[in-house]
Structures are given as structure tokens and as C-alpha cells.
């Protein structure tokens, strides 16, 4: 099963994608059944990781790995968080900010974005 985590400013598909990965407020978790049916949507709070002076992306990745996430959609994934996601075997799609989480999910499900092989460069502007 594909489990997608989208960094989100809030708990719904109408909320904006949080451009930050490690310090995102939370994640929309979309579980896509093998038969291609409608995904089930839930929300994972990430408040605690925001309080870390460093390494927020690593703790966030631990939470997502425990939730069985297989791919992350976000805006900016820093080098250390990228390393963590790689170690956890989670795919990353970057530059998915400036849209709603619902739109990001749709783009991914339509096959309109590619999984990154290196961290991107722009910081949350």
C-alpha cells in the first residue's frame, strides 16, 4: 500500500502545504489502497518536533516511518532530513508548496510529480 504524508498547515485537504518538512505543523496522511480505490485521509500532529533546536527533520521522519509512510510531499527538505528519509526508505517529492494539500495529493496521484534524488535548495520563501 502507498502511504503518502503531506506536510500541512492544518488538518484538512483545504489547508496549505507547509513548505517546511521537519518543522511542519502536521501531516495529512493518505492511505491509497492497492486496488486504486479512494484514499483514506487522516492527520498526524508534528507539534513536538517544532520545539527541537536541531534535528526536527529526523524526529519527524521517525514518526512518519512508524506510521508506515512510503512517500513524503513537501516544500523544502533540508540535507539532514533528506538523509533521514533515505535511511528510512521513504521517497520525497519537493517543491509541492504554494498549493493546498488536496491539490498536492491530486498531482501526485495523477503521476504529475517526480520523486527527488537530492535535497532541494530554496528555503521557505
Amino acid at each position, binding site marked *: 500500500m502507498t502511504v503518502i504524508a503531506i506536510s500541512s498547515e492544518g488538518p484538512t485537504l483545504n489547508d496549505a502545504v507547509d513548505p517546511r518538512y521537519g518543522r511542519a505543523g502536521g501531516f495529512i496522511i493518505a492511505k491509497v489502497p492497492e486496488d486504486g480505490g479512494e484514499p483514506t485521509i487522516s492527520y498526524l500532529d508534528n507539534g513536538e518536533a517544532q520545539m527541537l533546536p*536541531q534535528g526536527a527533520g529526523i*524526529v519527524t521522519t521517525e514518526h512518519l*516511518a512508524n506510521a508506515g509512510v512510503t512517500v513524503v510531499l513537501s516544500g523544502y527538505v533540508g540535507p539532514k532530513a533528506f538523509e533521514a528519509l533515505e*535511511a*528510512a*526508505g521513504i521517497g520525497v517529492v519537493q517543491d509541492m508548496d504554494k498549493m493546498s494539500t488536496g491539490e498536492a495529493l491530486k498531482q501526485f496521484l495523477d503521476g504529475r510529480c517526480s520523486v527527488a534524488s537530492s535535497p532541494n535548495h530554496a528555503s521557505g520563501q
Partner: protein
Amino acid sequence: MRIGIASGKGGAGKTMLAASLHSVWPTQHILVDCDVEAPNLHFFAHPHIDQTWTVTLPVPQAVTEACSHCGVCRDICRYGAIAKFGQNIAVFPDLCHGCGGCFAVCQEKALVTGTRELGRIEQGSCGDTAYFSGCTRVGEVMTPPLLRKLLALLPEQTPADVIVDCPPGVSCPAVTVARRVDAMVLVADPTPFGYADFCLAYEAFHALGLPLACVLNRCAMPGNEGGDEKLKTFCQTHGIPVAGEVPFTREAAHALAQGRLLPELSPDWRTRFEQLCANLQRIFGEVQHG
């Protein structure tokens, strides 16, 4: 005696004072730059550097095949440097604080030791004054281990006084150095911000039981009327001897910006710092190292 030159507020004039004291100090002494995040003493003291070391922190670098992925190393680490993703242990040496906990608890001895560069230490001389300084690597967040290594280089048994340019502020870097000096000179900038930060510095260093003295910098600054008096009243109320006052002049500001020493500007400036130096020696007269 080891004398720290500290300030609550950054830019209060610590480095200016440390360098000026060095140029008028009447006896053999050692000069140390402990402001390792922003080391600037070299601009004024022009040391000749004989030796440079890279200081590293032993950190976990990776796990070997012996790792049972039990996760005890992750659980003891309070810095998030070891993570467990599903069943796999992953190590992030950049986040390590060097507490050694992971190595101590790993039954399989599966952690590979690596090193992270914290910064550099330099040793040299300014004339017949021995000089030591540290500089953190850009991107490194931890300064106390570098400071401990730097201060450990100073000879324990020496008749020479040691003048230490301390890190600014009142948090861990400043406290790390303050624990290793015998007396502290607080440089005060008599502006409202400087006053507030001076009060915090007094609170922090007084609590450590250090003998304190104050030097007022940029006195009689235009626009800052009343500031000097307010600071002197605080010193009087709290029994902090004022060892001297350094007036604000555009000439001095320009000279300092170019790395020139105030005692070298004119005989008047020199006399002022000689007097300040004599006052400090009188105030801290009884203090011994140890």
C-alpha cells in the same frame, strides 16, 4: 591570576579592553581569546601564530553489522543524534553533543567512532606575551567543548597573569569560561540595552561567586545623557568597584574599527589605561589562581 573580560551585551567593548590591558599590563602575562564564535582579539593584538590545532569531538559515525538494532543507543541520546526508522538504526553525527552515552550502553560495540570538527585552536605570541585563541567551525553549534580544550592549554602553575576575552552573554559559553577564571571584569555599555544586559551579567557571574569589577565604556556618548549615572548607581548599590571609564569619541571609534589600540592613540589615552590597569590590580590584589 586569571582575569576574564566579559559583558552581557555583545559589542560592549570586551575585546577593546582585553587588547588595551595587554598593551599596558606591567608584568608578564598571557592573552587568550575565548570569544570563539566571533574571535576578534587578533585584529588588535597582531599575534604571531606558531601552531594551529583542529579540535574534534568523538562522535558515533555509523553502525556495523554487529548492530542488533535494539535501540538502547537511541534511547539514551538526548540530542536526537541516533534515530530508529522501523527496525534500522541511523546515526546523525552533526547532532551529537559528545556525551558518550551511546558508546557506553552498546552491548555489541557496534558503533563506529568518528570525529566532528568543532573548530581550531591557535597558539602564538604577541612580543613576549603568549597568545592562545579558539575559533568555532562555521556551522558548528557547540562551543563549550572547544572552550574546555582551549583553557586546558593554559599552564596551571604560572606566576604570569592571564587576560581572557570571554564569550558575550550569560549562557553556556560565557559560564564555561567563567568557571575557569579567578576574577571577572564586566565591560558595560551605558545605553539602556547595555544597562539591562549588564544587570543580567552581574546576576549570572555574582552567582558563581567571582570577584567582579566594572569598566564603563563609551561614557558621555552624545544622546545617552543619564546613562552613565544610572550604571554607576547600580554598581554602587551592588558593591561592584568601577575600575575605570573609557570615553566615547569619534576618533576612538574610527581607530577601533581599523584595529588600532586606544593606548597607542596618545599619551593621554595611555595614561587612562595605565590607571585603569592599576585600579584592577588593586581591586583584585588578593585574588590567587586556583
